[in-house]
């Protein structure tokens, strides 16, 4: 009987099957976690160190150019200079390109006395006189035929008489002309 009890007791404390394997796996897992902890600690320290090094390098590079602000100011000033000069050159008006085409459009028997030029509006008012209506008409068509004249209108026409005889015909033309007549081609300066 006593032997039976002892055998039963022995049976109760017997470890479950596979416990050993599970135990060993747990030890391995635990060691892995502890190892992982130190490994991550090491990686973190390393990453922190790299970050510090980069920060030091940034500070060093910033400090390595003490004249950086001066360089920036100089660059800014010159950039503005170029931009502003370009703005002005693009928008300014000159007279030189106007003369030659206009002179070539004045009729031999017409005389121009007044010339009002508004470069910004691209308008030109021409007042003068011709020998007769034919000369004024030819003057009108001579201007109209020119490429630089975009629009042309006759705004005044009157006769000049001496002893009832028409000696001249006065005229006023209003023209809308090409913008190029008031723009200087800066490449010409080279």
């Amino acid at each position: 009987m006593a032997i039976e009890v002892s055998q039963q007791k022995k049976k109760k404390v017997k470890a479950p099957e596979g416990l050993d394997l599970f135990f060993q796996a747990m030890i391995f897992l635990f060691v892995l976690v502890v190892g992982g902890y130190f490994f991550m600690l090491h990686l973190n320290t390393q990453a922190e160190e790299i970050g510090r090094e980069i920060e030091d390098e940034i500070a060093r590079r910033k400090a390595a150019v003490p004249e950086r602000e001066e360089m920036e100011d100089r660059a800014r000033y010159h950039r503005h200079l170029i931009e502003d000069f370009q703005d002005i050159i693009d928008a300014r008006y000159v007279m030189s390109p106007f003369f030659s085409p206009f002179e070539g459009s004045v009729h031999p028997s017409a005389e121009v006395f007044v010339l009002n030029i508004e470069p910004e509006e691209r308008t030109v008012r021409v007042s003068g006189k011709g020998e007769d209506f034919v000369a004024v008409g030819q003057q009108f068509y001579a201007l109209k035929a020119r490429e630089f004249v975009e629009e042309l209108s006759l705004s005044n026409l009157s006769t000049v008489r001496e002893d009832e005889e028409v000696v001249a015909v006065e005229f006023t033309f209003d023209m809308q002309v090409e913008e190029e007549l008031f723009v200087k081609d800066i490449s010409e300066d080279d």
Partner: protein
Amino acid sequence: MIKIILTVIFFVGSLGGGLYVVHPLYEDYQVRMEENEVLKEELENIRVYIAELREIERKIEEHEEEFEFIASALPEDHDAPTLFLYLQNQMDAHNLTSTSDFGDFSVDPYVIEESEHERVKEVSFSLALEGDYENIKNFFGEIEQVARVMSIEGVNFSSSEGPAGFGEETPAGAVGLNVEMSAFSY
């Protein structure tokens, strides 16, 4: 029995350690690496920026002459006296006489495309001259070449005494000239 308890302890320890110690460390590491990437990018930007600044410096030095020309076209101050002296000299050189007070001017913000330029000012003035048509043409040709940029805003030629000289066939005569002009400065 002890083995079972130890197994449980190792299991719980591994699980807890993994979840509450190693994983947060891993997350910290990831954050640090991302921060480092940002810092690296900043460092690279600084490197490029400084290299570009040096390149700009080099180009400015290389084109110093051109910049001096532009700077004289756009002086820091309107410097109207020098401008008028120059125009007076040009008028004398081209036998043109001034027929009204010379030297009145106004300085206003430069208006371009209906909005005020943020830096440039416009010096506006007018001239009333008299002289030969050819000389007037040469006068314009001369002042358009000068470094100080000037813009012709309006011109009025008139001749009360006869042919004004426009056209190839008409003889030259005295021409009156009113001209509205602008120069520019900071």
